[in-house]
Protein backbone atom coordinates (compact mmCIF):
# COMPACT_ATOMS: atom_id res chain seq x y z
CA UNK A 1 0.00 0.00 0.00
CA UNK A 2 2.69 2.41 1.03
CA UNK A 3 4.86 1.30 -1.82
CA UNK A 4 2.08 1.97 -4.31
CA UNK A 5 1.52 5.51 -3.05
CA UNK A 6 5.21 6.10 -3.33
CA UNK A 7 5.29 5.10 -6.99
CA UNK A 8 2.30 7.31 -7.73
CA UNK A 9 4.10 10.25 -6.18
CA UNK A 10 7.23 9.38 -8.13
CA UNK A 11 5.37 9.19 -11.42
CA UNK A 12 3.69 12.50 -10.69
CA UNK A 13 7.01 14.08 -9.80
CA UNK A 14 8.58 12.88 -13.02
CA UNK A 15 5.59 14.17 -14.96
CA UNK A 16 6.00 17.65 -13.47
CA UNK A 17 9.73 17.58 -14.07
CA UNK A 18 9.32 16.54 -17.69
CA UNK A 19 6.83 19.36 -18.28
CA UNK A 20 9.24 21.91 -16.85
CA UNK A 21 12.23 20.43 -18.65
CA UNK A 22 10.34 20.70 -21.92
CA UNK A 23 9.44 24.27 -21.09
CA UNK A 24 13.08 25.07 -20.39
CA UNK A 25 14.50 23.25 -23.38
CA UNK A 26 11.91 23.62 -26.12
CA UNK A 27 12.84 27.17 -27.22
CA UNK A 28 16.43 26.03 -27.57
CA UNK A 29 15.34 23.01 -29.58
CA UNK A 30 13.16 25.21 -31.76
CA UNK A 31 16.10 27.52 -32.42
CA UNK A 32 18.30 24.66 -33.56
CA UNK A 33 15.78 22.94 -35.81
CA UNK A 34 14.64 26.26 -37.30
CA UNK A 35 18.21 26.90 -38.28
CA UNK A 36 18.20 23.73 -40.38
CA UNK A 37 14.83 24.24 -42.06
CA UNK A 38 14.65 25.29 -45.67
CA UNK A 39 12.61 28.21 -46.98
CA UNK A 40 9.42 26.26 -47.54
CA UNK A 41 9.57 24.64 -44.13
CA UNK A 42 10.66 27.47 -41.90
CA UNK A 43 7.13 28.80 -41.40
CA UNK A 44 5.59 25.41 -40.59
CA UNK A 45 5.31 23.90 -37.15
CA UNK A 46 6.99 20.61 -38.02
CA UNK A 47 9.19 19.43 -35.18
CA UNK A 48 12.00 18.16 -37.37
CA UNK A 49 13.42 19.61 -40.56
CA UNK A 50 12.23 17.21 -43.30
CA UNK A 51 14.86 18.42 -45.72
CA UNK A 52 17.69 19.65 -43.48
CA UNK A 53 19.80 22.35 -45.06
CA UNK A 54 22.89 24.37 -44.24
CA UNK A 55 21.67 27.25 -46.40
CA UNK A 56 20.71 29.35 -43.36
CA UNK A 57 24.20 29.10 -42.00
CA UNK A 58 25.68 30.10 -45.34
CA UNK A 59 23.36 33.14 -45.49
CA UNK A 60 24.13 34.04 -41.91
CA UNK A 61 27.86 34.08 -42.62
CA UNK A 62 27.25 36.15 -45.76
CA UNK A 63 25.00 38.67 -44.02
CA UNK A 64 26.98 39.11 -40.83
CA UNK A 65 30.67 39.13 -39.96
CA UNK A 66 29.97 36.27 -37.57
CA UNK A 67 33.54 35.07 -37.09
CA UNK A 68 34.70 38.59 -36.41
CA UNK A 69 31.90 39.15 -33.88
CA UNK A 70 32.60 35.82 -32.18
CA UNK A 71 36.24 36.79 -31.91
CA UNK A 72 35.19 40.14 -30.43
CA UNK A 73 33.04 38.31 -27.90
CA UNK A 74 35.90 36.05 -26.91
CA UNK A 75 38.27 38.96 -26.51
CA UNK A 76 35.76 40.92 -24.43
CA UNK A 77 34.82 37.97 -22.24
CA UNK A 78 38.40 36.85 -21.67
CA UNK A 79 39.70 40.36 -20.95
CA UNK A 80 36.81 41.02 -18.59
CA UNK A 81 37.39 37.76 -16.77
CA UNK A 82 41.11 38.40 -16.42
CA UNK A 83 40.75 42.01 -15.28
CA UNK A 84 37.90 41.28 -12.89
CA UNK A 85 39.84 38.37 -11.40
CA UNK A 86 43.00 40.44 -10.95
CA UNK A 87 41.22 43.37 -9.32
CA UNK A 88 39.14 41.16 -7.08
CA UNK A 89 42.05 38.95 -6.02
CA UNK A 90 44.21 41.95 -5.11
CA UNK A 91 41.37 43.60 -3.21
CA UNK A 92 40.31 40.49 -1.30
CA UNK A 93 43.90 39.73 -0.43
CA UNK A 94 44.51 43.21 0.95
CA UNK A 95 41.40 43.00 3.08
CA UNK A 96 42.33 39.61 4.50
CA UNK A 97 46.08 40.04 4.86
CA UNK A 98 46.14 43.40 6.63
CA UNK A 99 44.03 45.18 9.15
CA UNK A 100 43.67 48.29 7.01
CA UNK A 101 42.44 51.54 8.47
CA UNK A 102 39.02 52.37 7.13
CA UNK A 103 38.09 48.76 6.38
CA UNK A 104 34.46 49.53 7.15
CA UNK A 105 34.40 52.37 4.65
CA UNK A 106 36.10 50.20 2.06
CA UNK A 107 33.60 47.44 2.61
CA UNK A 108 30.70 49.90 2.39
CA UNK A 109 32.02 51.39 -0.84
CA UNK A 110 32.31 47.92 -2.34
CA UNK A 111 28.87 46.79 -1.20
CA UNK A 112 27.20 49.97 -2.39
CA UNK A 113 28.75 49.77 -5.81
CA UNK A 114 27.25 46.31 -6.14
CA UNK A 115 23.90 48.09 -6.15
CA UNK A 116 24.68 50.68 -8.81
CA UNK A 117 23.03 49.56 -12.03
CA UNK A 118 24.66 50.42 -15.33
CA UNK A 119 21.54 52.37 -16.34
CA UNK A 120 22.26 54.90 -13.61
CA UNK A 121 25.85 55.62 -14.64
CA UNK A 122 25.67 54.94 -18.38
CA UNK A 123 25.46 58.55 -19.57
CA UNK A 124 28.59 59.94 -17.86
CA UNK A 125 30.48 56.77 -18.77
CA UNK A 126 29.32 56.99 -22.36
CA UNK A 127 30.42 60.62 -22.53
CA UNK A 128 33.81 59.78 -21.03
CA UNK A 129 34.39 56.87 -23.41
CA UNK A 130 33.57 59.18 -26.31
CA UNK A 131 35.95 61.83 -25.02
CA UNK A 132 38.68 59.22 -24.79
CA UNK A 133 37.88 58.18 -28.34
CA UNK A 134 37.24 54.63 -27.24
CA UNK A 135 33.78 54.19 -28.74
CA UNK A 136 33.60 51.39 -31.29
CA UNK A 137 36.51 49.67 -29.55
CA UNK A 138 36.67 46.55 -27.43
CA UNK A 139 38.77 48.40 -24.85
CA UNK A 140 35.89 50.85 -24.50
CA UNK A 141 33.62 47.93 -23.64
CA UNK A 142 36.04 46.29 -21.25
CA UNK A 143 37.58 49.12 -19.20
CA UNK A 144 34.46 50.44 -17.42
CA UNK A 145 33.47 46.88 -16.49
CA UNK A 146 36.91 45.79 -15.33
CA UNK A 147 36.00 45.82 -11.65
CA UNK A 148 33.23 43.51 -10.57
CA UNK A 149 32.25 44.27 -7.02
CA UNK A 150 30.15 41.18 -7.17
CA UNK A 151 33.35 39.19 -7.77
CA UNK A 152 35.18 41.00 -4.98
CA UNK A 153 32.46 40.39 -2.42
CA UNK A 154 32.24 36.74 -3.42
CA UNK A 155 35.97 36.11 -3.45
CA UNK A 156 36.44 37.91 -0.15
CA UNK A 157 34.44 35.14 1.51
CA UNK A 158 36.79 32.48 0.12
CA UNK A 159 39.87 34.43 1.14
CA UNK A 160 38.55 34.83 4.63
CA UNK A 161 38.15 31.11 5.08
CA UNK A 162 41.75 30.50 3.99
CA UNK A 163 43.73 29.17 7.01
CA UNK A 164 45.47 32.15 8.60
CA UNK A 165 48.13 29.83 10.04
CA UNK A 166 49.53 29.21 6.56
CA UNK A 167 49.81 32.93 5.85
CA UNK A 168 51.31 33.46 9.29
CA UNK A 169 53.99 30.83 8.88
CA UNK A 170 54.94 32.20 5.48
CA UNK A 171 55.29 35.60 7.07
CA UNK A 172 57.55 34.15 9.75
CA UNK A 173 59.69 32.72 6.98
CA UNK A 174 60.05 36.27 5.74
CA UNK A 175 58.23 35.73 2.46
CA UNK A 176 57.22 38.74 0.45
CA UNK A 177 53.53 39.54 0.59
CA UNK A 178 53.03 39.18 -3.13
CA UNK A 179 54.80 35.84 -2.97
CA UNK A 180 52.40 34.70 -0.24
CA UNK A 181 49.48 35.57 -2.49
CA UNK A 182 50.82 34.00 -5.65
CA UNK A 183 52.66 30.96 -4.30
CA UNK A 184 50.70 30.04 -1.22
CA UNK A 185 47.13 31.28 -1.35
CA UNK A 186 46.28 31.14 -5.05
CA UNK A 187 47.41 27.53 -5.65
CA UNK A 188 45.25 26.48 -2.73
CA UNK A 189 42.13 28.22 -3.91
CA UNK A 190 42.65 27.47 -7.60
CA UNK A 191 39.28 25.81 -8.00
CA UNK A 192 37.47 28.67 -6.31
CA UNK A 193 39.11 31.19 -8.58
CA UNK A 194 38.47 28.98 -11.59
CA UNK A 195 34.78 28.64 -10.86
CA UNK A 196 34.44 32.36 -10.32
CA UNK A 197 36.31 32.80 -13.60
CA UNK A 198 33.80 30.64 -15.45
CA UNK A 199 30.96 32.71 -14.05
CA UNK A 200 32.66 35.95 -15.04
CA UNK A 201 33.31 34.59 -18.52
CA UNK A 202 29.66 33.69 -18.99
CA UNK A 203 28.44 37.06 -17.80
CA UNK A 204 31.07 38.81 -19.92
CA UNK A 205 29.95 36.84 -22.95
CA UNK A 206 26.32 37.71 -22.24
CA UNK A 207 26.88 41.40 -21.44
CA UNK A 208 24.18 43.52 -23.03
CA UNK A 209 23.56 47.19 -22.34
CA UNK A 210 27.07 48.57 -22.20
CA UNK A 211 28.48 46.92 -25.36
CA UNK A 212 25.31 48.00 -27.14
CA UNK A 213 25.98 51.65 -26.27
CA UNK A 214 29.66 51.49 -27.18
CA UNK A 215 29.57 49.63 -30.49
CA UNK A 216 27.16 50.14 -33.36
CA UNK A 217 29.05 48.61 -36.28
CA UNK A 218 28.79 44.83 -36.48
CA UNK A 219 32.53 44.53 -37.13
CA UNK A 220 33.26 46.15 -33.77
CA UNK A 221 30.55 44.41 -31.78
CA UNK A 222 30.40 41.28 -29.73
CA UNK A 223 28.10 38.68 -31.29
CA UNK A 224 25.23 39.57 -28.96
CA UNK A 225 25.07 43.12 -30.21
CA UNK A 226 25.38 42.01 -33.81
CA UNK A 227 22.47 39.64 -33.30
CA UNK A 228 20.44 42.40 -31.74
CA UNK A 229 20.85 44.67 -34.73
CA UNK A 230 20.08 41.79 -37.07
CA UNK A 231 16.84 41.05 -35.19
CA UNK A 232 15.91 44.73 -35.19
CA UNK A 233 16.61 45.19 -38.88
CA UNK A 234 13.31 43.35 -39.43
CA UNK A 235 14.50 41.27 -42.32
CA UNK A 236 12.36 38.20 -42.46
CA UNK A 237 15.27 35.80 -42.49
CA UNK A 238 14.42 33.81 -39.42
CA UNK A 239 16.26 30.73 -40.57
CA UNK A 240 19.55 32.59 -40.81
CA UNK A 241 18.86 34.48 -37.63
CA UNK A 242 18.33 31.22 -35.79
CA UNK A 243 21.51 29.89 -37.37
CA UNK A 244 23.44 32.89 -36.08
CA UNK A 245 21.79 32.59 -32.68
CA UNK A 246 22.71 28.91 -32.53
CA UNK A 247 26.32 29.78 -33.29
CA UNK A 248 26.30 32.47 -30.61
CA UNK A 249 25.07 29.94 -28.04
CA UNK A 250 27.60 27.27 -28.96
CA UNK A 251 30.55 28.40 -26.83
CA UNK A 252 28.41 28.75 -23.72
CA UNK A 253 26.65 25.43 -24.31
CA UNK A 254 29.98 23.74 -24.94
CA UNK A 255 31.47 25.16 -21.76
CA UNK A 256 28.33 24.19 -19.90
CA UNK A 257 28.39 20.57 -20.97
CA UNK A 258 32.12 20.23 -20.37
CA UNK A 259 32.23 22.00 -17.02
CA UNK A 260 28.67 21.49 -15.80
CA UNK A 261 29.60 20.66 -12.23
CA UNK A 262 31.90 23.66 -11.88
CA UNK A 263 29.40 26.03 -13.42
CA UNK A 264 26.59 24.90 -11.17
CA UNK A 265 28.91 25.04 -8.19
CA UNK A 266 29.99 28.56 -9.02
CA UNK A 267 26.40 29.72 -9.34
CA UNK A 268 25.64 28.11 -6.01
CA UNK A 269 28.65 29.71 -4.41
CA UNK A 270 28.43 33.14 -5.94
CA UNK A 271 24.88 33.76 -7.06
CA UNK A 272 24.22 36.20 -9.84
CA UNK A 273 23.87 39.83 -10.56
Amino acid sequence: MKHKRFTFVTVFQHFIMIVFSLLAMFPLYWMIISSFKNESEIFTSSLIPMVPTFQNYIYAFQEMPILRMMLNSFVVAILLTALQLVTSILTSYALVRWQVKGATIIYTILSLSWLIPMQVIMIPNYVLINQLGLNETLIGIVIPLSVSTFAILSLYQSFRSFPQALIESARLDGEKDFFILVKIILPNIKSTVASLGILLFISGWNEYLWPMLITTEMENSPIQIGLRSFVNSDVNMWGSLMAATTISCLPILLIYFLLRKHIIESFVRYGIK
Partner: protein
Amino acid sequence: MRNNQGNSIGISTLESVPSKKFTAKKLRLFAKPYLYLLPTFLLLWIWMYYPLFSTFSLAFQKWGMVPGTVPSPVGFENFVRLLTSKDFGVSILNTVFYTVGIIPFSIIIPLILAVATHNMEGKMKNVYRTMFFIPLILAPVSDGAIWRWMFHPTNGLVNTVLLDLGIINTNIAFFSDPLFAKWLILFITGWKMMGFGTILFSAALTGISKDYYEAISLDGASRFQQFKDLTLPLLSPMILLILMMSLLFSSQWTFAYIDMLTRGGPFGTSTNIYYEMYKYGFANMDVGLSAAAALMFFVVFGIIAFVFNLFSKKYAFYDN
Protein backbone atom coordinates in the same frame (compact mmCIF):
# COMPACT_ATOMS: atom_id res chain seq x y z
CA MET B 1 65.01 38.69 1.40
CA ARG B 2 65.29 38.23 5.13
CA ASN B 3 65.63 41.80 6.27
CA ASN B 4 61.96 42.67 6.50
CA GLN B 5 61.37 39.76 8.79
CA GLY B 6 61.91 41.83 11.93
CA ASN B 7 59.61 44.76 11.58
CA SER B 8 56.76 42.95 9.91
CA ILE B 9 56.00 40.93 13.00
CA GLY B 10 57.84 42.92 15.66
CA ILE B 11 60.58 40.47 16.57
CA SER B 12 63.89 42.27 17.17
CA THR B 13 66.49 41.45 14.55
CA LEU B 14 70.20 41.19 15.08
CA GLU B 15 71.12 44.13 12.94
CA SER B 16 69.86 47.43 14.25
CA VAL B 17 67.85 49.52 11.86
CA PRO B 18 68.67 53.22 11.48
CA SER B 19 65.66 55.22 12.54
CA LYS B 20 65.29 57.19 9.31
CA LYS B 21 65.20 54.05 7.24
CA PHE B 22 62.76 52.63 9.73
CA THR B 23 60.20 55.39 9.13
CA ALA B 24 60.51 54.96 5.40
CA LYS B 25 59.88 51.31 5.87
CA LYS B 26 57.03 51.99 8.20
CA LEU B 27 55.48 54.25 5.61
CA ARG B 28 55.94 51.60 2.99
CA LEU B 29 54.34 49.02 5.25
CA PHE B 30 51.48 51.38 5.93
CA ALA B 31 50.98 52.12 2.26
CA LYS B 32 51.33 48.55 1.04
CA PRO B 33 47.75 47.34 1.63
CA TYR B 34 46.46 50.42 -0.12
CA LEU B 35 48.60 49.67 -3.14
CA TYR B 36 46.76 46.38 -3.48
CA LEU B 37 43.46 48.20 -3.18
CA LEU B 38 44.47 50.98 -5.54
CA PRO B 39 43.54 49.49 -8.95
CA THR B 40 40.06 48.57 -7.76
CA PHE B 41 39.30 51.83 -6.07
CA LEU B 42 40.74 53.92 -8.88
CA LEU B 43 38.58 52.09 -11.40
CA LEU B 44 35.55 52.22 -9.11
CA TRP B 45 36.00 55.95 -8.71
CA ILE B 46 36.40 56.64 -12.44
CA TRP B 47 33.70 54.30 -13.71
CA MET B 48 31.18 54.10 -10.88
CA TYR B 49 31.27 56.70 -8.17
CA TYR B 50 32.34 59.71 -10.20
CA PRO B 51 29.71 58.95 -12.88
CA LEU B 52 27.19 58.36 -10.12
CA PHE B 53 27.78 61.86 -8.79
CA SER B 54 27.78 63.22 -12.34
CA THR B 55 24.39 61.64 -12.88
CA PHE B 56 23.12 63.22 -9.69
CA SER B 57 24.30 66.63 -10.82
CA LEU B 58 22.99 66.11 -14.37
CA ALA B 59 19.56 65.53 -12.82
CA PHE B 60 19.45 69.28 -12.16
CA GLN B 61 20.63 70.23 -15.62
CA LYS B 62 19.42 70.21 -19.17
CA TRP B 63 21.55 68.62 -21.84
CA GLY B 64 21.12 66.87 -25.19
CA MET B 65 24.50 65.11 -25.19
CA VAL B 66 25.42 67.04 -28.33
CA PRO B 67 29.20 67.32 -28.59
CA GLY B 68 30.40 70.88 -28.03
CA THR B 69 27.40 71.86 -25.91
CA VAL B 70 27.44 72.04 -22.13
CA PRO B 71 24.67 71.18 -19.67
CA SER B 72 22.77 74.18 -18.29
CA PRO B 73 21.26 74.28 -14.80
CA VAL B 74 17.46 74.02 -14.59
CA GLY B 75 16.83 73.36 -10.90
CA PHE B 76 14.07 70.85 -10.23
CA GLU B 77 12.50 71.14 -13.68
CA ASN B 78 13.53 67.59 -14.67
CA PHE B 79 11.87 66.15 -11.60
CA VAL B 80 8.70 68.12 -12.26
CA ARG B 81 8.61 66.94 -15.87
CA LEU B 82 9.30 63.39 -14.75
CA LEU B 83 6.60 63.29 -12.10
CA THR B 84 4.01 64.83 -14.38
CA SER B 85 4.76 62.53 -17.31
CA LYS B 86 2.37 59.65 -17.74
CA ASP B 87 5.04 57.24 -18.99
CA PHE B 88 7.02 57.57 -15.83
CA GLY B 89 4.09 56.54 -13.64
CA VAL B 90 3.44 53.54 -15.87
CA SER B 91 7.10 52.58 -15.80
CA ILE B 92 7.11 52.61 -12.00
CA LEU B 93 3.98 50.47 -11.83
CA ASN B 94 5.55 48.08 -14.33
CA THR B 95 8.76 47.95 -12.34
CA VAL B 96 6.71 46.85 -9.35
CA PHE B 97 4.78 44.44 -11.59
CA TYR B 98 7.99 42.79 -12.83
CA THR B 99 9.59 42.78 -9.39
CA VAL B 100 6.66 41.07 -7.73
CA GLY B 101 5.85 38.96 -10.77
CA ILE B 102 9.31 37.41 -10.88
CA ILE B 103 8.94 35.92 -7.39
CA PRO B 104 6.96 32.85 -8.48
CA PHE B 105 9.70 32.13 -11.02
CA SER B 106 12.62 32.84 -8.74
CA ILE B 107 11.28 31.26 -5.56
CA ILE B 108 8.04 29.31 -5.73
CA ILE B 109 8.58 27.23 -8.89
CA PRO B 110 12.28 26.64 -8.06
CA LEU B 111 11.29 25.49 -4.57
CA ILE B 112 8.90 22.94 -6.07
CA LEU B 113 11.46 21.81 -8.65
CA ALA B 114 14.24 21.52 -6.10
CA VAL B 115 12.18 19.62 -3.54
CA ALA B 116 10.73 17.31 -6.18
CA THR B 117 14.13 16.45 -7.66
CA HIS B 118 15.82 16.22 -4.29
CA ASN B 119 14.56 12.76 -3.35
CA MET B 120 14.86 11.29 -6.81
CA GLU B 121 17.07 8.29 -7.19
CA GLY B 122 19.66 7.93 -9.89
CA LYS B 123 20.65 10.05 -12.80
CA MET B 124 17.36 11.73 -13.70
CA LYS B 125 17.77 14.21 -10.88
CA ASN B 126 20.84 15.73 -12.47
CA VAL B 127 19.44 15.46 -15.98
CA TYR B 128 16.44 17.57 -14.98
CA ARG B 129 18.50 20.10 -13.10
CA THR B 130 20.89 20.40 -16.03
CA MET B 131 17.99 21.24 -18.30
CA PHE B 132 16.33 23.80 -16.00
CA PHE B 133 19.61 25.61 -15.88
CA ILE B 134 20.25 26.11 -19.59
CA PRO B 135 18.05 29.19 -20.18
CA LEU B 136 19.92 30.98 -17.41
CA ILE B 137 23.37 30.76 -18.92
CA LEU B 138 22.36 31.69 -22.46
CA ALA B 139 22.69 35.32 -23.44
CA PRO B 140 19.57 37.50 -23.10
CA VAL B 141 19.94 38.38 -26.78
CA SER B 142 19.85 34.74 -27.82
CA ASP B 143 16.88 34.03 -25.57
CA GLY B 144 15.17 37.17 -26.85
CA ALA B 145 15.76 36.25 -30.48
CA ILE B 146 14.32 32.77 -29.96
CA TRP B 147 11.19 34.02 -28.21
CA ARG B 148 10.70 36.72 -30.77
CA TRP B 149 10.76 34.07 -33.44
CA MET B 150 8.39 31.76 -31.54
CA PHE B 151 5.88 34.57 -30.98
CA HIS B 152 6.30 36.09 -34.43
CA PRO B 153 3.03 37.83 -35.39
CA THR B 154 2.56 36.10 -38.74
CA ASN B 155 4.88 33.12 -38.95
CA GLY B 156 5.66 32.22 -35.36
CA LEU B 157 5.14 28.77 -33.92
CA VAL B 158 2.73 29.93 -31.23
CA ASN B 159 0.37 31.56 -33.69
CA THR B 160 0.58 28.61 -36.08
CA VAL B 161 -0.23 26.12 -33.35
CA LEU B 162 -3.05 28.21 -31.86
CA LEU B 163 -4.57 28.63 -35.33
CA ASP B 164 -4.24 24.92 -36.08
CA LEU B 165 -5.91 24.04 -32.81
CA GLY B 166 -8.71 26.48 -33.58
CA ILE B 167 -8.13 28.45 -30.38
CA ILE B 168 -7.76 31.69 -32.30
CA ASN B 169 -9.10 32.79 -35.67
CA THR B 170 -6.54 35.41 -36.61
CA ASN B 171 -2.88 35.84 -35.80
CA ILE B 172 -2.03 37.70 -32.64
CA ALA B 173 0.74 40.29 -32.69
CA PHE B 174 1.76 39.34 -29.16
CA PHE B 175 4.45 41.91 -28.56
CA SER B 176 2.44 44.82 -29.88
CA ASP B 177 -0.69 43.89 -27.96
CA PRO B 178 -0.99 45.63 -24.57
CA LEU B 179 -2.84 42.60 -23.28
CA PHE B 180 0.11 40.28 -23.84
CA ALA B 181 3.28 42.36 -24.05
CA LYS B 182 4.16 42.83 -20.42
CA TRP B 183 3.00 39.38 -19.34
CA LEU B 184 5.21 37.85 -22.01
CA ILE B 185 8.20 39.90 -20.88
CA LEU B 186 7.57 38.67 -17.37
CA PHE B 187 7.13 35.10 -18.49
CA ILE B 188 10.31 35.11 -20.59
CA THR B 189 12.36 36.66 -17.80
CA GLY B 190 10.89 34.14 -15.38
CA TRP B 191 11.59 31.29 -17.79
CA LYS B 192 15.21 32.36 -17.84
CA MET B 193 15.55 32.74 -14.09
CA MET B 194 13.80 29.51 -13.11
CA GLY B 195 16.99 27.46 -13.02
CA PHE B 196 18.78 29.88 -10.76
CA GLY B 197 16.57 29.39 -7.72
CA THR B 198 16.32 25.68 -8.45
CA ILE B 199 20.08 25.23 -8.29
CA LEU B 200 20.43 27.28 -5.11
CA PHE B 201 17.59 25.49 -3.35
CA SER B 202 18.95 22.12 -4.46
CA ALA B 203 22.31 22.96 -2.95
CA ALA B 204 20.70 24.11 0.27
CA LEU B 205 18.63 20.92 0.46
CA THR B 206 21.72 18.76 0.01
CA GLY B 207 23.16 20.49 3.04
CA ILE B 208 20.27 19.45 5.29
CA SER B 209 21.01 16.34 7.32
CA LYS B 210 18.77 13.34 6.65
CA ASP B 211 18.62 12.71 10.41
CA TYR B 212 16.25 15.63 10.83
CA TYR B 213 13.79 14.06 8.43
CA GLU B 214 14.05 10.69 10.13
CA ALA B 215 13.41 12.28 13.49
CA ILE B 216 10.41 14.25 12.33
CA SER B 217 8.87 11.35 10.39
CA LEU B 218 9.16 9.17 13.52
CA ASP B 219 6.91 11.77 15.11
CA GLY B 220 4.39 10.94 12.41
CA ALA B 221 4.72 14.12 10.39
CA SER B 222 3.26 13.96 6.90
CA ARG B 223 5.28 14.96 3.86
CA PHE B 224 3.60 18.33 3.81
CA GLN B 225 4.27 18.87 7.52
CA GLN B 226 7.88 17.90 7.00
CA PHE B 227 8.12 20.47 4.25
CA LYS B 228 6.39 23.15 6.31
CA ASP B 229 8.09 22.52 9.66
CA LEU B 230 11.53 21.45 8.57
CA THR B 231 12.43 22.21 4.96
CA LEU B 232 11.03 25.72 4.76
CA PRO B 233 12.63 27.04 7.96
CA LEU B 234 15.97 25.51 7.04
CA LEU B 235 15.76 27.04 3.57
CA SER B 236 14.78 30.46 4.89
CA PRO B 237 18.24 32.05 4.54
CA MET B 238 18.33 30.94 0.92
CA ILE B 239 14.78 32.15 0.32
CA LEU B 240 15.70 35.53 1.74
CA LEU B 241 18.85 35.69 -0.36
CA ILE B 242 17.00 34.91 -3.59
CA LEU B 243 14.20 37.27 -2.63
CA MET B 244 16.74 40.03 -2.12
CA MET B 245 18.40 39.36 -5.47
CA SER B 246 15.00 39.29 -7.19
CA LEU B 247 13.98 42.60 -5.65
CA LEU B 248 17.25 44.29 -6.48
CA PHE B 249 17.97 42.89 -9.90
CA SER B 250 14.69 41.89 -11.56
CA SER B 251 14.46 45.25 -13.31
CA GLN B 252 17.84 44.60 -14.83
CA TRP B 253 16.91 41.06 -15.79
CA THR B 254 13.87 42.29 -17.74
CA PHE B 255 15.79 45.09 -19.46
CA ALA B 256 17.16 43.07 -22.35
CA TYR B 257 13.79 41.49 -23.13
CA ILE B 258 12.00 44.81 -23.09
CA ASP B 259 14.60 46.11 -25.49
CA MET B 260 14.59 43.03 -27.72
CA LEU B 261 10.89 42.28 -27.81
CA THR B 262 8.72 45.33 -27.24
CA ARG B 263 10.98 48.37 -26.84
CA GLY B 264 8.73 49.29 -23.96
CA GLY B 265 5.62 49.31 -26.14
CA PRO B 266 2.88 49.18 -27.12
CA PHE B 267 2.26 52.72 -25.85
CA GLY B 268 4.74 52.29 -23.02
CA THR B 269 2.76 49.45 -21.45
CA SER B 270 5.69 47.09 -20.99
CA THR B 271 8.47 49.50 -20.11
CA ASN B 272 10.25 49.65 -16.77
CA ILE B 273 12.22 52.29 -14.96
CA TYR B 274 15.62 51.26 -16.33
CA TYR B 275 14.33 51.11 -19.86
CA GLU B 276 12.83 54.58 -19.49
CA MET B 277 16.22 55.89 -18.33
CA TYR B 278 17.78 54.35 -21.40
CA LYS B 279 15.11 55.81 -23.68
CA TYR B 280 15.23 59.29 -22.17
CA GLY B 281 19.01 59.31 -22.51
CA PHE B 282 19.73 57.58 -25.78
CA ALA B 283 16.52 57.78 -27.81
CA ASN B 284 15.24 61.22 -26.75
CA MET B 285 18.68 62.64 -25.92
CA ASP B 286 17.17 64.11 -22.76
CA VAL B 287 20.01 63.58 -20.32
CA GLY B 288 18.46 65.57 -17.47
CA LEU B 289 15.29 63.51 -17.45
CA SER B 290 17.23 60.24 -17.54
CA ALA B 291 19.45 61.42 -14.70
CA ALA B 292 16.51 62.58 -12.61
CA ALA B 293 14.88 59.17 -12.98
CA ALA B 294 18.17 57.54 -12.07
CA LEU B 295 18.59 59.65 -8.97
CA MET B 296 15.08 58.99 -7.75
CA PHE B 297 15.34 55.30 -8.24
CA PHE B 298 18.77 55.02 -6.81
CA VAL B 299 17.45 56.53 -3.61
CA VAL B 300 14.37 54.30 -3.50
CA PHE B 301 16.32 51.14 -4.26
CA GLY B 302 18.95 52.13 -1.74
CA ILE B 303 16.31 52.37 0.94
CA ILE B 304 14.82 49.01 -0.04
CA ALA B 305 18.25 47.37 0.03
CA PHE B 306 19.06 48.92 3.38
CA VAL B 307 15.79 47.83 4.98
CA PHE B 308 16.18 44.39 3.51
CA ASN B 309 19.69 44.11 4.82
CA LEU B 310 18.52 44.96 8.31
CA PHE B 311 15.68 42.51 7.97
CA SER B 312 17.83 39.61 6.83
CA LYS B 313 20.44 40.29 9.49
CA LYS B 314 17.75 40.04 12.08
CA TYR B 315 15.87 37.00 10.86
CA ALA B 316 18.15 34.84 8.80
CA PHE B 317 20.89 32.62 10.01
CA TYR B 318 23.92 32.15 7.78
CA ASP B 319 26.40 29.59 8.89
CA ASN B 320 29.47 30.41 6.85
